[in-house]
């Protein structure tokens, strides 16, 4: 058991993956000599050489497109997209090529590719550096989408994602890169398992990645007011871990989903719709969503007003708890 930052845990996980399988190659802009703009790949090129930790030209479609070629040649590429807002030039290669190639080939081709995306806001960045675009990928059949929230999961999930035979979009909560936590000697969940934190007899908060810490803080505050509020760290956005999610929703009967992305058409909509479809009779109030407002990510000076915060989450819990059918 070791204490690491989330970024450090990713670094250690990538190192283990490179050691474990020589078909694993990392590729991306500035990931080699510089070690990545967040230093997640720090030291890896030095250790594994420029053939396994590849500084690429500045072209995201090229990164994903050539990764597909590498995978077809038997490699297991792990691509870094420098910031969330720069994944869109690669959208066709991800959504039309990477996601569909196995199905298009009638199940013959295998595309074990991981695309790492530092996502989310809250670090005072300039535009295009704080986006939460998980919903686009979660809606795309053929991809798997996961999101880690703490060092232990970061360490284990990145290795599980690389070991997966399927394409995985791997979201890293960039504002939690420097958070410290313990890394356990063994993974206790499969890649697509969700983690329940607390009991949630009164209400359930569903969150992922950067919003888990917020949800935990809100749950703690609610606890002080005498409510038992559980937090479900989704970890996997596609597929959802339905048994765990529905169990938790049924127990609580009141659910609030929290994420940074704009709510309209966000992953919270799918979660709300699914919970409602499966747990209608057990729900005491409608599933509520707290997310970014439905505007493009604002200038950093007002990002705290845009992002869900503890006040907005507590207000939503309140609304959920005080919901009256007759009202």
């Amino acid at each position: 058991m070791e204490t690491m930052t989330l970024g450090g845990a990713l670094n250690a996980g990538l190192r283990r993956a490179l050691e474990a399988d020589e078909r694993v190659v990392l590729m991306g802009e500035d990931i080699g000599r510089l070690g990545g703009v967040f230093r997640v790949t720090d030291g890896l090129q030095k250790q594994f050489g420029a053939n396994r930790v590849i500084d690429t030209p500045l072209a995201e479609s090229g990164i994903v497109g050539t990764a597909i070629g590498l995978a077809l040649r038997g490699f297991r590429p792990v691509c870094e997209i420098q910031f969330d807002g720069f994944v869109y030039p690669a959208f066709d290669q991800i959504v039309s090529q990477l996601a569909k190639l196995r199905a298009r080939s009638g199940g013959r081709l295998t595309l074990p590719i991981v695309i790492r995306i530092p996502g989310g806001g809250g670090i005072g960045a300039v535009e295009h550096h704080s986006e939460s675009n998980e919903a686009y990928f979660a809606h795309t059949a053929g991809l798997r989408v996961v999101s880690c929230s703490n060092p232990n999961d970061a360490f284990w999930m990145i290795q599980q994602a690389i070991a997966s035979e399927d394409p995985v979009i791997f979201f890293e909560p960039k504002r939690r890169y420097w958070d410290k936590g313990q890394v356990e000697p063994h993974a206790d969940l499969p890649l697509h398992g969700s983690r329940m934190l607390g009991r949630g007899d009164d209400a359930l908060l569903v969150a992922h990645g950067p919003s888990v810490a917020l949800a935990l803080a809100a749950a703690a505050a609610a606890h002080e007011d005498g409510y038992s509020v559980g937090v479900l760290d989704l970890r996997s956005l596609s597929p959802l871990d339905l048994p765990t999610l529905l169990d938790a929703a049924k127990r609580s009967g009141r659910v609030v989903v929290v994420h940074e992305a704009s709510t309209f058409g966000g992953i919270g909509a799918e979660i709300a719709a699914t919970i409602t479809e499966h747990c209608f009779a057990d729900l005491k109030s409608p599933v509520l969503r707290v997310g970014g407002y439905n505007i493009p990510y604002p200038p950093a000076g007002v990002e705290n007003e845009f992002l869900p915060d503890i006040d907005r989450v507590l207000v939503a819990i309140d609304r959920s708890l005080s919901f009256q059918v007759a009202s």
Partner: protein
Amino acid sequence: MSNKDVASLERIAPELEPQSIPTPERDVIRFVQSDGTLTELGQSRGVDVGFAQSLYREMVLARRLDVEALALQRQGELNLWLQCAGQEAAQVGSIRALDAADMVFPSYREHAAALSRGVTASELLSPWRGASHAGWDGSARRFHLYSLVLGTQTLHATGFAAGSRLAGTDDIVLTYFGDGAASQGDVNEALNWAAAMKLPVVFFCQNNQWAISTPSSSQMGAPLHQRAAGFGMPAWHVDGNDVLAVHAVTEAAALHVRSGRGPAFIEAQTYRMAGHSSSDDPGRYRGADEVTLWGGRDPISRMAKLLGELGTAEQFFAGLRAESDDFARDIRSACLSIERPRFEELFGNVYAEPHPVMERERAEFCALTSMLDAGV
């Protein structure tokens, strides 16, 4: 002030003329002229008749496939067909210049190349009959699936070549794309990437003069072989309807590429003799003159003349006609026996590892089907 006025007002000072300017299109490399006679270059190279016959045979069979497939489409047996008539020399000449281990990333009109790689008629027609997205095993044939999103395959080719280099093998990669696709960002990213990393890729552009209704002349501001050289790779400009020249040029490019000197580019001038697809009406955008002109440059009849000239026996041609007729029958029966997939199987083709949504939906689909079948 109109543009003309500006132009006449001032001139760029001679010492400040641009240092790098578009150069004119180079003449194509040609061994065999439209009338089947050899050019000077062709004469000096000489012709290996047996080999030329084998190329000719593949072109004839590919043309036959094209004719039969169009007929099948017209009869409602195929949903759509994209003809490759006119481009047989560009495809057969190039693919025959590769080693068997070399990987090919085609676009979607490379039927002659596909046949040359052993893709069967049944495999080739399957997607156009709506039975699959890709009928063949790309790894086994060393011929990847067709790519319909234009240009995307050039990046896959580039990555595959990067993998070969990492693995230390000396196989190379060839990728086909069209004059229209060359306008896509992906193709240009691939050219730059392969050049920057000196990867073993042959970029083979079949400039068939048209991208649906858009002529090459309005698709670009300079000939493609010149663009490629500007990215840092040598480029050949070849008569794409001359199978011998295409073969020789591709061999040269493959040699360059295999020797570790980075990628190479070939622009083959050819012609899409038919419409863009069986749904297209080319009469809306191009004249009969042009079609006639290029009809006179047909890659197959030119080789027939040359081979005759070089003493090929009528027996050879007759044998090929018979083979071609047999092939036509095979194509037809292969087409009619292509089976639709069972829909429930598709759920298993999406992910390599278990996936709960797939399992749930497959079960739902099967339950629904039995329910409806039972007439509930």
